[in-house]
């Protein structure tokens, strides 16, 4: 995930290389040249096929590639220029793209007894790829470790210390893996059915990235047992922001986001009632714009995009966005996509999937 000002469009173009820009149509090239930021997101075509696209800040599609099935989260390494699209759970593929097109896409298949949960992250130098996975017969979340320098060979795995592992990220210095265990049991035999809504076990976990040793684990208090901790991003000050999806009574007003730091306790953001209602007790994606000190969250349930002050948690902005899907830091503010094809100011004839990653 894009983490700040280290790379912009020029950086992206440099990483993508001449062969990438040479392959673009004049229209795509123009979209790229006038973009302040570049993103990638999964999508579904109107004919039902799936793909991944690079997108300008205005929302124009620059380039696209096919995927065998629906993708979910993405990871990008600015160090290597590689981008990964992870299959939506309970999918078993992850597709690695090289923006410079110097190497063919690599398909990673989850090992026997595991499926991807839809998220992952590169180590800061891009040498390792971590992926959230389900050991479904053992009913435990795992973090698969893949060697990006060796055709993404699987070189190990760590116990995620929870069930229903979903999003995961890596600290800026690469020493910690940060994991959101949603607490919901699923099994590929039962598709996407949630098997334990009456006894969920959500948790937020920090692991030593080198050894997989447990550094810190936060369970949730009994009153919030049905609050599934799902998505993560890291602020400029090292705060780990998390976003949640409530599986309890629909007329409750649970907290939907919060933050913590290494060694500290969880803090929940106290959202106004009307904001919680607009989010439909469900945050589908979260992203921090470090330069501006803001946090973006989206919810497709009612259709909302909310921006918070990353320092105080106060709501700065609320927008009505029908079918709101992904969020990512923009050159200014937060980029938002939707299932019905809206990406910032452009509507395309695709359905954008749940997550966006900023490439440059």
């Amino acid at each position, binding site marked *: 995930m894009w983490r700040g000002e280290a790379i912009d469009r020029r950086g992206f173009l440099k990483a993508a290389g001449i062969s990438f820009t040479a392959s673009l149509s004049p229209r795509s090239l123009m979209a790229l040249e006038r973009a302040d930021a570049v993103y990638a997101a999964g999508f*579904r075509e*109107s004919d*039902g096929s799936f793909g991944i696209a690079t997108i300008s800040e205005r929302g124009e599609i620059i380039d696209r590639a096919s995927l065998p099935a629906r993708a*979910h989260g993405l990871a990008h390494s600015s160090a290597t220029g590689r981008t990964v699209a992870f299959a*939506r*759970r309970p999918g078993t593929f992850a597709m690695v793209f090289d923006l410079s097109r110097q190497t063919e896409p690599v398909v990673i298949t989850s090992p026997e007894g595991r499926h991807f949960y*839809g998220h992952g992250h590169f180590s800061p130098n891009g040498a390792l790829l971590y992926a959230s996975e389900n050991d479904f017969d053992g009913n435990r979340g795992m973090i698969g470790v893949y060697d990006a320098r060796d055709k993404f060979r699987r070189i190990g795995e760590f116990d995620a210390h929870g069930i229903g592992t*979903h999003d995961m990220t890596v600290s800026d210095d690469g020493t910690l893996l940060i994991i959101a265990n949603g607490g919901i049991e699923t099994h590929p*035999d*039962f*598709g*996407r*059915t*949630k*098997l334990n*809504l*009456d006894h969920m076990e959500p*948790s937020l976990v920090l692991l030593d990235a080198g050894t997989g040793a447990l550094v*810190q*684990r*936060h*369970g*949730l*208090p009994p*009153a*919030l047992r049905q609050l599934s901790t*799902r998505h993560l991003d890291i602020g400029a000050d090292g705060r780990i922001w998390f976003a949640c*999806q409530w599986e*309890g*009574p*629909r*007329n*409750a*007003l*649970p*907290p939907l986001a919060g933050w913590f730091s290494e060694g500290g*306790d*969880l803090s*929940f953001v106290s959202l106004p*009632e*009307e904001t919680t*209602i*607009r989010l439909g007790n*469900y945050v*589908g*994606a979260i992203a921090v714009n470090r330069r501006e000190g803001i946090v973006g969250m989206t919810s*497709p*349930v*009612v*259709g*909302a995009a909310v921006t918070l002050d990353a320092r105080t948690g106060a709501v700065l902005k609320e927008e*009505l966005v*029908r*079918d709101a*899907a992904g969020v990512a830091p923009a050159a200014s503010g937060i980029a938002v996509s*939707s*299932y*019905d094809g809206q990406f910032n100011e452009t509507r395309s004839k695709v*359905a954008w999937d*749940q997550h966006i990653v900023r490439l440059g």
Partner: protein
Amino acid sequence: MRMILVAGLISLLPAVAFAQAGEPAPSVDLPEAEVSKVMTAAVDGFIRPGYSAFHRSAEKMTSVVKTLCGTPSAANHDSAKSAFRAAAVSWAHIEIIRVGPVIEQNRFERILFYPDRKSTGLKQVQGTLSKSDETATDPATLATKSVATQGFGALEYLLFGTGSEALSREKNGFRCRYAAAVAGNITNVSEEISGIWDAPNGIQEAWKQPGPSNPVFRTGGEAATALLGILVHGAETVRDQRIETFYKGPEKAKFPKQALFWRSETTWPSVKGNIEGLAALLEASGMADLLKQSDRPILASTKALLKSMAELSEQVTPDLERAVEDPKEREKLDTLLFQGREVIISLSEGYGGAIGLGSGFSFSDGD
């Protein structure tokens, strides 16, 4: 484990609706009164009668198995087998409801533990038989044991599996008393579910009257989306779990003994029960009424597909080894897989799109 206490972090919504200016338009915006009518029809015309019928058939099955135990004979064994098949089909009809009380407290798994690729249920039932564990002969204590030992899978092995011929000879033998306890357990669970749905101010009211203070559905759009989700997931289950578990196509590996109820030759009656359940929910709820007149042919084609699938499922041989090998039988399976896909698409894309879901893309959770 680190845990902080978060007193007062969760509260309930005030009963008054937030209808102030600026309230976002929901993704699915349907007339609340029409949705309420459809949800009421779904609950009173399909869900409650479905659980009630299943409870009655489970009660009958329990009674017939008890008769077999007290008066063993080949005829009574056959009656028990017939009662099993009838209860399994009754369950298949309402099994498509995979939301609400049935998925709480492991009730679904206690009725049916499937798929079971590692044959956990078979091993555990055989273990119980070999030890003659008397605590498995009382539904109350059986209910505390592994879910794999207390539902239809276990009962099928006891009535149809290796050694079941003893049932027609041994009076009050262990196997029969265990079978009666399993039937009794299924009856108890079905009674519980039926009771929860029938309680006047409980879940049925929540389903019928979506609103801001409703613990299940805040808006009519959410309720209609959930109802559609039941149908889509139900159709996916028939195709992906009940058929593809043992047959994915002529060139793929085949596993006829992974099929649900292959021992009792109830695989296709069960599939037919699922399909007829989907068709019945579609019909009873009047979901078509939520569509514009011009969009209603979408559901007509869905119903035609379901009817065709139900008829075809009756024509497949119950001998599943032959069903996956014989080209003529395989053709029927391929057709069922194809039509199953068509049903899923027509519901999620066709109906979903027509009521305002983003091309059917967002009816499910974003994850």
